[in-house]
């Protein structure tokens, strides 16, 4: 996730947001199918550097610059199943990154209030 949305000069990366809290929420709340999809997508991300940048290592072992090249190329991949997997991963990352108040401020958006998680019981 950090490789897909890294910190740059212009913007905070996903590592600057409460990623752990988000993953905890996702684990406890998201439906099984979504969690499974994300697990598969993460596997795809880690197991494909050979095809994107010709390195026979899982993505988590790549140095920073190579990891970035891998993320960029995978994000452009047109092979449908891979494209869908990365789409899902980027969507999940976006849910965490885009609700962060610092990111929102940089984008000229008001911060979100807390989600109430409530409903009418009466």
């Amino acid at each position, binding site marked *: 996730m950090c490789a897909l949305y890294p910190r740059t000069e212009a913007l905070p990366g996903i590592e600057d947001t409460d990623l752990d809290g988000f993953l905890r929420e996702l684990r406890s709340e998201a439906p099984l199918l979504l969690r499974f999809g994300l697990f598969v997508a993460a596997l795809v991300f880690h197991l494909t550097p050979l095809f994107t940048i010709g390195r026979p290592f899982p993505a988590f072992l790549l140095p920073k610059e190579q990891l970035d090249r891998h993320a960029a190329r995978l994000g452009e991949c047109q092979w449908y199943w891979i494209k869908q997997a990365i789409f899902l991963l980027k*969507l999940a990352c976006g849910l965490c990154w885009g609700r962060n108040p610092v990111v929102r401020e940089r984008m000229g958006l008001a911060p979100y209030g807390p989600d109430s998680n409530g409903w009418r019981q009466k």
Partner: protein
Amino acid sequence: MRGTHVSFRSAVEPAFEAEADVVVVGSGAGGGAFASYLARQGLVVGVVEAGPWIEPEQYPHSVYGAMRDLMDDWGMQVTLGRAFWPIVQARVVGGTTVINSAICVRTPADVFDRWEREFGIGRGSGRGRLAERVWMHQEALEKELSAEEVPLEALGRSNALAMKGARALGYESHYMTRYVERCAGSGQCLQGCRKRRKRSVNVVWIPEIIERGGFIVSCAPVESVTFEGRRAVGVRGRFLHPKTRERGSSFQIRAKRAVVLAASPTKTPLILWQSGLRHPAIGRFFRAHPGTGVFGVYEHEVDHNIGATQGWSTLAFRDRLGIKLETLHIPLELVASRLAGGGRTLMERLARYRFFAMWCHSIRAESVGRIHRTFFGKGIVRYTLNKEDMRRLREGVYLVARTHFAAGAQSVIPGIGGMPFEIGPHEVERIREASLDPRAYVAILSHLFGGAVMGADPRSSVTDEGGRVRDCDGLLVVDASVIPSVLGVNPQHTIMALARCFAEELLGG
């Protein structure tokens, strides 16, 4: 029981039982319009809804919260076919009216002509009568739901730019009329209008139904309709906790006069099957208006999340090409999934977010899909666009891109696989040569039709033209499932007015 709301009951509580004159399953556009009409005629209406009742002040702010709290299956249902395109619907009191943009368009006359020609609808009651009744109800609904053109102060730059582009190209377009009273332009329609400006079913009709002596049962997915002989006499199911998914106690609600299904095109067919009905047309003739979006990149900040979520539209290409263009403010959280790339490349693209304007189009697709029931009782939708519809989808991208350029965009991001990430004005014709493979597009389905269609032919239609289910008594379908064709315009106004026509017929009016 009258005038109340009942929510989740745990499995240790006794089974819940109630009785109403009419039981309506689903509280969205169709169910809400139908139930409120009957409640005004003095009937006791019980509305049974699978999702929870969430007040606007409790709506989540974030997209994560909206997916979790408001959407059916977290918005993760997809079509099964050549491509996996998301099918977005809500699961909450108020149905999809809670998360839609409230755009209100009267049913075009050609829709009724087609219904009569192809499905024999309207013949029985005299030509033109259904059209006139629908339009009469639409006129009343517009007053009831405060249909208003987006006020100038709520437009934001994106909607205004689209108007500028259309004018430069010389085609007719307009600012949207929506069921919204004094829009504040917060751009949050898809997460629910926390400001209560959008007149969704949960805000307007559900409180009225309760006030008039009806009742609402929420967190209560109906499993099946119960029958005595051929007559539908009620519904049953089991409460479901909206957060923990824990199954609660069972419920049974009896209907003295009729049971009415309005659970949406993907769910109503399932309830019909689970109730033992086996009409061969159940689940068939599923149709949709697939749509996709195109970013324009401007020299100056557009801040497209400020202003009405969908404030501009054109019907100029509807009749000839079957394409409708609209603006659409896509929340920040969802932008990256629409941009190719990852890592620093993606972040550089995201850094230009404030200069983007997202406009989209939806097509009047003639492709037909089918709803199936899996072994586990869940519904799946098989649907793939044919070549002709894919040409429409691609042409829509081209029209949106041209409008962006006419409005002054420096480049557009067509979002079609195999094309460059970004193209300039001199490259716009390249879109017309882009792939016609559905896998090259990120489209979504938000306007759904069919699955329990109405018609004159008893073999190919599940209901007659009054929404009455064949082969049984006292069972109606009043949501988008009955609509046998695509409309080419936003559907909720048609769904609501049609539901009101059916309600009138039930009362013998």
